[in-house]
Every structure is written in C-alpha cells, then in structure tokens.
C-alpha cells in the first residue's frame, strides 16, 4: 500500500487546481468547492492511514527501514539531472586511493601525491567533482509518517470546519485553492526524500502562508501582515539555503539517506568547537527559526492572525510552523554532532517559550493570545530537540497540533458566533450560548495546561523531564527552570482566556460591539466610547472599521437585528460542520497523549512496541554515544528486540551497561538537576515522579491564579497591572520587539535606501548627466568644426572644380546622335590601332611593295 504515497500530495494539488482554475469561471457552488476540497483531503488522509499502517504494522512492514519511492520504482523521476558539484568541504584526513584501471591510476598518481588524497570522514575522496542528481521521490519513514498523519488528519478537520466558517465569502473558491496548495506544499515538505524537495515545500508553504494571511487583501492590516510574514521568512530561508549549499559541498548529494549515512561518520564537535557540521546546523536552525517563529524571528506569527481563523489553525498553529521542528528532527544527525548548536537550540527554544508566554498574559485579542501561545509551545518543542529528546519534540508537535488546532477552531467558532468579534473583553459566559464549543475548548485548555491525563501533559512533562535530565548540554537545569516558569504562564493565560470568553458576565449584552477587534477599537472602548458604528463595507468581506475612526452612536434604526455585526446581538452556536471537527479534535486532544505515555507510569520502559511514539521514531534518531541510529532497542511487531540492533549496541557498550548510565556523549556534563535529585532520592523513578508532581503543581498554580484573577475577583488584574506597571507595559507592548525591529531594521533599511537613492541621484546620475553634458559639448565643437571648416573646404574645392571643368564637359554633350556615334567610331579606330596597328602597317607596307 505504501507504494501509493505519491498520490497523497497529488490529490490536494488536483483539488486546488480544479477549484482555483475553474471555480470562478464555472461559478462553482460552495457545496461543490467544499466537496472537492474536503474530498481530496479526505482521500489523501485515507491513503496516508493505509500507507502508514502497511509501512509500520502491516504483514511485511518496512519499519524501521526507510522506504523511498525510487527504490522499488513506485514513483520517482530525475528532477535536476547531472549537475556537476565540487565537494570542497569536509576534509578530515588523507588516504591513498587504490587505483582501478589505467585512467584511475593516472588520477591517483596525480592526486595521491606524497600525503595521499584528501578524504572526508566517510572515506569519500574530497576535492574531486561529484555528480549531483536530484530526484523527485517521496520518503516514508517514522518521522514523515507522523507528519503526514498530522497534516492530512488535522487538515481534514480544519477543511470541514472552514466550509462552515467561510460560508458566504465571495472568495470561497480562492480560499480552498490556496488551502489545497498549502496541503500539497506541506506534504512535499514532509515527504520529500532530499533537501531540495524540502526546500520546495518550505518555500511553497511560505507562499501559501503569504497568500492566506493576505486573504482579505483589501484590508491594509492583512496586506501588511502578509508582507511581514513573507519577508521575515526570507531571513530564515536564507540560512536554510546556505545550509543546503553546505550539505551539497560537503556530501555531494542531497538525498537524506545518503547525507545522514555520511554525516554519522563525522567526528563530534564539542561545545565551542565550530566545525563544519556546526555551521550547517546553524544555517538549518536559522531556517527553522524563521519558519517556526523562534526568537528573534517570531514577529510575523502574531500578525499572521490577520488571516481567516481556519488558516491560523491549520498553518500558523498545527502544521506549517512545525516545519522547523520537522527539519531539525530530520537532520538530527547533523545537530547532534554539534553540542554548541544543541545548546543554542535549547536556549533559543526556552527563551522563546518564556518570552511568548509572558506576552500572552496581557493580550486581549483571542487570536493574539493563541498566536503567542503557539510561539511559546514551539519554543517548548525546540527545547526538547535541544536537550536531545527529538522524539519528544515530535510528540509535542503532534499533541500541540491536536489541542492548538482545536483551540483555534474553537476561537473561530466563538468569533463566528459573536459576529466577528475578537476582543475577549467583550465576551463572557459563552458556555450558555455555545455549549459544544465550550466543552471542546475545555479539553484543549486542560491539554495545554498540562493536566493529567490530557495529551499536553504527557508531551510537556516529558520535555521538562528531559530538560532536567539531559546529558547532551550542560545547561539543562536552566532550560528546565525557564520551561517550568513558561508552563506556569501558559496555564495562567489559557485560564484567563477561558475565563474571559466562556465564564463570567455576559459583557456583550452591556457593550455594543462590531467590526473586527483591534487595538484601536479596544482603546476606544477603554475610553468609554462604548458604542460603535463601524462602517459596513458591503464588499462581500467582513464588516470592519478603520483604526482611529470615530465610534459613536448613530440612529437606533441602523442597529436593527438585520444589521450584521452591529449593535447588541446574541451569540449562537456554530453549525454542525464547525463543531463536529471540534469534537473530533477534542477527543484527540484528550487521548492523543497515550501514544507517548511517560516511562514513570510504566516501570521505566517505553511500552507498547511500535505504538509508542518514542519507539516508533527511534530508527530515525541518531545516537551520539553508540554512533548508530536508534537509541532504544528496536522492537519488532511482537515487542521483541530486533536481533541485529542488540548486537550492534553490545559491541559499543561494555557488558551490563544500561543505556541510561552512559555518560554525556560530548564528555562534559556540568550541573545536572536530575542527577542531583536522583543522588538525594536514590531512585530514578522517584525522581521522575518528583518532576511530574512539580509540573502538575505549576499547572495547578497557573490555573488557580487565573481563576483567582479572572473569576473570583475581577478587580485583581487591574490592581496588579498597576502595581507591576513596567512589566505589564512591556508584556502588553510585546516587549517592543516590533518597535525595535522597526527602528533597528526597517528604519535603517529605509535610511540606507534613502542614502543609496541620494548616491544614485547625485553621484551616479551626476556622472551620467555630466558625461552627457561633456558629450554634448564635444559634439557641438566637432559639429561646428565639421559644418564650418570641413564642409567649407570641401564645398570650395568642389565649386572651384565645377566652375573650371563644367564648360568643357558641357560642350561635349551636344545631344546629336551622330556625334556620339562618331566618338564610338573614333574609339573603335583607336582600339584597333592600338591592338592591330603594327599588323596593319606591315600589311599596308607589303601591299605598297607589291604594287610599286
């Protein structure tokens, strides 16, 4: 079955092509467009499920081997053929190459020299050309299986939701065309078998993100946000592209299986040692930062909420932003070779997690809160990767996809039910009006807070435990502390969100609202301008108002029940097409965590064989200690260790050594929180339980604080905001990062542009104009000379000659035919005389001699 995975990206592309190219021309109905879009995704999802099942669990499952569609001819073609590439990087030694044949003997003689030929760590000669053939084929392994399932499965839910949410939009066909294109790009990204295919998908999702953020392109805010996202992503893509060049120059190929096989044999690079793989990893991580919104390239993601809410759910929460995680995990061989980069990843992730979580506390736009929550959760995932727990990072990607998609769709449902109201200060007690949305949202809330047994608990707890007990980097305890504080903040701001939205007083009854919320609207509300008369733009899009626009009472007749989005209105529950996907995602968010159940609960082992996500992902994770792929024992479908893997480990490890007891792969370990705790408690399980209790405790504290602030005593937020005014201001204004970038980058770029423009207009144009002036001057001089001197001389000579000679020649032209004939005859006579004169004279002489 997994032979047919090439259909998976193709189906959404076909759906997008039909909708995008024909939807407008043939005036497809919403039902047809939705049917095509949802149908193509559903089919892709079914194929994915069947393919993954047959790959991992079927009768002759390929797991743990990697399946590439080119290996059995299922699907592949040469995409970029026969490029010559010069492998210039990665010389680690020299060797004498055994020549085969006469030609190679000559080469070897030339290249071997006295010291031998330069080779890289994989024993491959470096410095000579290699042939770079890039093929287009899909790869199916543990990592891409999980991503395919997330993308198509969560995508299906969101597509169904979007058919309800986007109902009545004039750009319905356009929306689903973009969404389908996004699915295609994302699937190419996660299914590609080489770096260039990943790059194609990478740029494709960036493009679709741009198109969908700017979906309401007639709104300045959305257009700006889309540009911001695109440009910020370019910064990351630049790093990614450099890393790909590095990979090509080092390994001479882009195919994953080939690259990682070579990379595994390179030496480890300790902290502070910037070797070749560190630089490649740095480039890759810059790319991941751009796509996954890590500091300092996170600025685009909150603004991306200007797009329709299903887009925010699919692209900016569940799938696209996790592309960075996919890439880091995919290239974990390279990252794990560089302890420096592991530490950079962990610290950047931790910083982002805390940074975004603190911003999320003070935001009032429901989607903004979720956006910063997403940034924060992505930070958690990078934290996991940085401390070496790549599988746990992917586990969190999965659970996060469930609960964050759920919450975004829930927010979309709220916005839909509230008639495009996004400001949480004008919501409240929605559980009464939107019971399904409320109940499903609760599952997402408990999951992200990390309450047992919801899915978020398992992944987040594992991340924190791995941070505390990591042997990869010496600063695991810092990461753990930062992560724990961030988890507390997460619980607090999510409780705040739920409290302001679903609990408490029905504030929308008191306050008139309408139009799309933004900060300008909110500030007008704060000043007591409670009424709002947003101008209704009947452009087919949403009602809206401009920032700074006057808001005040208008005629009461204008605020009738039919006046969409204005005046007091009662929220309503969303249609089934919207809450059914919510219910599906709620179930997943509740039970999804059991595939990665913590070892503390199961006696120190990852149970469940391949069904456990850690075991399932094991074959693609490289182990720097054993220099092999796979950290744990590889288990077959019956749960028994695979023979070959056990032997491979036994060769490396001394007998009787547990994998856990191995010292840090990089040698220096530094202060390790978990080890200290373990030495006090004398039990590993107890230590793990301690950390579980701590993480549950902080979640409880966060929820309790949120409840206290926003339900028990609603005056507290204002009091504490006033008390911690500088902190509140910093958080409310997002730490002025946008302003900083505006000042440090945008202004400087514009200054530079102005400078360059001045240089261009003054110096370059001056040079051009000056040379033109010089040319004109010289041409005037030479023109004058020509006109008055040269022409004068020529004319004078010609006139003189004409005067002198013309009577002669004129006289010759009599016009009488006979004159001309006479000249001809004279000419004849002359010619004859010239040629035969002597003969004639002799003949005449002889005749006279005869006669006389």
């Amino acid at each position, binding site marked *: 079955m997994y032979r047919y995975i090439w259909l998976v990206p193709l189906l959404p592309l076909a759906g997008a092509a039909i909708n995008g190219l024909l939807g407008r021309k043939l005036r497809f109905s919403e039902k047809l467009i939705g049917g095509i879009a949802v149908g193509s995704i559903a089919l892709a999802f079914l194929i994915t499920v069947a393919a993954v099942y047959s790959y991992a669990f079927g009768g002759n499952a390929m797991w743990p081997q990697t399946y590439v569609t080119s290996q059995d001819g299922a699907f592949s073609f040469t995409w970029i053929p026969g490029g010559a590439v010069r492998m210039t990087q990665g010389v680690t030694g020299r060797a004498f190459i055994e020549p085969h044949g006469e030609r190679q003997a000559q080469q070897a003689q030339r290249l071997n020299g006295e010291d031998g030929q330069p080779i890289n760590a994989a024993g491959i000669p470096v410095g000579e050309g290699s042939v770079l053939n890039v093929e287009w084929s899909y790869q199916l392994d543990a990592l891409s299986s999980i991503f395919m399932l997330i993308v198509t499965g969560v995508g299906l839910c969101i597509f169904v939701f979007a058919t309800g949410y986007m109902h009545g939009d004039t750009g319905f066909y356009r929306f689903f065309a973009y969404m389908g294109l996004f699915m295609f790009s994302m699937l190419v990204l996660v299914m590609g078998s080489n770096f260039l295919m990943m790059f194609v998908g990478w740029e494709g999702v960036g493009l679709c993100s741009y198109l969908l953020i700017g979906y309401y392109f007639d709104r300045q805010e959305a257009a700006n946000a889309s540009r911001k996202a695109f440009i910020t992503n370019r910064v990351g893509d630049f790093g990614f592209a450099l890393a790909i060049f590095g990979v090509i120059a080092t390994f001479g190929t882009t195919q994953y299986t080939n690259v990682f096989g070579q990379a595994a044999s390179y030496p480890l690079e300790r902290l502070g040692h910037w070797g070749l793989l560190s630089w490649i990893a740095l480039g890759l991580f810059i790319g991941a930062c751009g796509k996954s919104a890590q500091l300092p390239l996170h600025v685009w993601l909150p603004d991306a909420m200007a797009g329709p809410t299903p887009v925010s759910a699919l692209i900016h929460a569940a799938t696209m932003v996790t592309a960075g995680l996919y890439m880091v995990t995919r290239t974990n061989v390279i990252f794990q070779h560089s302890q420096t980069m592991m530490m950079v990843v962990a610290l950047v992730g931790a910083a982002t997690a805390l940074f975004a979580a603190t911003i999320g506390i003070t935001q009032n736009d429901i989607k903004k809160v979720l956006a910063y929550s997403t940034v924060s959760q992505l930070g958690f995932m990078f934290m996991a990767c940085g401390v070496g727990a790549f599988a746990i990072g992917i586990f969190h990607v999965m659970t996060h996809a469930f609960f964050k998609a759920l919450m975004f769709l829930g927010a979309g449902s709220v916005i839909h039910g509230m008639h495009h109201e996004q400001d949480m200060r004008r919501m409240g007690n929605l559980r009464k009006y939107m019971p399904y949305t409320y109940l499903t949202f609760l599952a997402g809330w408990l999951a992200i807070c990390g309450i047992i047994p919801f899915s978020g608990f398992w992944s987040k707890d594992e991340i924190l435990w791995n941070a505390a007990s990591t042997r990869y980097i010496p600063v695991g305890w810092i990461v753990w502390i930062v992560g724990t504080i961030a988890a507390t903040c997460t619980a607090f701001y999510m409780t705040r969100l739920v409290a302001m939205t679903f609990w408490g007083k029905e504030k929308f009854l008191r306050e008139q609202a309408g139009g799309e919320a933004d900060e300008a609207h909110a500030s007008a509300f704060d000043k007591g301008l409670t009424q709002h008369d947003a101008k209704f733009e009947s452009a087919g899009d949403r009602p809206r108002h401009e920032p700074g626009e006057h808001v005040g009472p208008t005629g009461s007749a204008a605020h009738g029940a039919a006046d969409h989005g204005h005046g007091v209105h009662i929220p309503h529950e969303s249609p089934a097409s919207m809450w059914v996907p919510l219910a599906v995602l709620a179930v997943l968010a509740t039970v999804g965590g059991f595939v990665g159940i913590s070892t503390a609960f199961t006696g120190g082992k990852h149970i469940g064989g391949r069904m456990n996500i850690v075991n399932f992902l094991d074959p693609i994770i490289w182990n720097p200690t054993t220099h092999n792929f796979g950290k744990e024992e590889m288990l077959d479908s019956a749960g028994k260790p695979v023979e070959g893997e056990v032997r491979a480990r036994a060769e490396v490890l001394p007998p009787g050594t547990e994998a856990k007891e191995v010292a840090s792969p990089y040698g220096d370990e530094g202060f390790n929180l978990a080890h200290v705790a373990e030495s006090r408690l004398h039990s590993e399980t107890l230590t793990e339980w301690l950390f579980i209790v701590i993480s549950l405790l902080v979640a409880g504290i966060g929820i309790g604080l949120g409840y206290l602030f926003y339900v028990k005593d609603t005056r507290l937020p204002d009091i504490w905001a006033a008390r911690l005014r500088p902190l509140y201001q910093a958080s409310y204004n997002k730490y002025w990062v946008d302003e900083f970038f505006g000042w440090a980058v945008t202004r400087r770029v514009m200054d530079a542009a102005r400078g360059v423009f001045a240089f261009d207009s003054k110096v370059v144009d001056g040079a051009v104009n000056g040379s033109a002036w010089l040319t004109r001057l010289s041409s005037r001089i030479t023109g004058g000379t020509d006109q008055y001197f040269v022409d004068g001389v020529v004319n004078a000579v010609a006139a003189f000659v004409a005067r002198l000679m013309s009577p002669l020649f004129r006289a010759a032209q009599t016009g009488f*035919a*006979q004159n001309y004939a006479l000249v001809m005859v004279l000419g004849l006579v002359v010619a004859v005389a010239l040629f035969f004169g002597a003969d004639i004279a002799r003949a005449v002489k002889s005749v006279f001699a005869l006669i006389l």
Partner: protein
Amino acid sequence: MQLALFNFLSPAFGMLLQAASNGRFAVAWEKAQHPDLSKFLIIGALLFIIGVAGVLTRRNIIVIFMSIELILNAANLNFIAMSRYLQDTGNVNAVAGQIFAVFVIVVAAAEAAIGLGIVIALYRNKETIWVDEIDILKW
C-alpha cells in the same frame, strides 16, 4: 557618281590586280571563280566602312538606318565567308556562322521595325527626321 562606281568596282579591281601580279590569267580566272577568304573579308570591311560613313555623315534618319543595315550585312558577309572557309578546311562546326547570320537578319528586322516606329513617333513630335535638328539626347 564616279566615286560610287569606283566604290563598287574597286574590289574587283583589287582581285584582278592581285591575280595579274601572279602572272597567269587562267589561274586568276580560277581564283575569281573560287575567291579565297581575304577577298570576302575585304569586301566586308569595305561594306562596313561604307555603313559607318553613312551613319556618321547622312542627316536623314532613314538613310542612317539603311547604313546600319549595311554594317550588319557586312558582318553577315564575314560570317558566311568564315563559315565557307571553315567548311573547306574541314571543320565540323562550320555551320555555326550561317546560323549566326540568320540570327543577325532576324535582329536586323526587329531593329528596323522598332527603329521605324521611333522615327514615326519622332516625326509626330518634332516634325522632322533630320538628325542635326534632334538634340534631345542631351537631356
């Protein structure tokens, strides 16, 4: 008139003089019956000279045409004579000269037709056929 007669007779006298110089009348008669090539060439040359003189000296355009005919026929005579001579010497392609003569006659006829047409047109415009009154070739 006398001059014209002399013109006509002078080739015959030439022949006789040449023959007489050899001293034997019978041989001279024989040679008059079968004149050799040079005699025809001389006659052709004389005809040519008469024609050229006519073209250059006569004012009437019709006469000039006739003189041109003379020139052409002088050429024809040369062709025929050469053809005969080459036949006598056994050349296989001797008939070419005769064919050429036929061509020249055709061309002469065509030329006469066109020339006379021009003359008529000229006369209609200028009311003269004296060539010394026609000097429009200058323009």
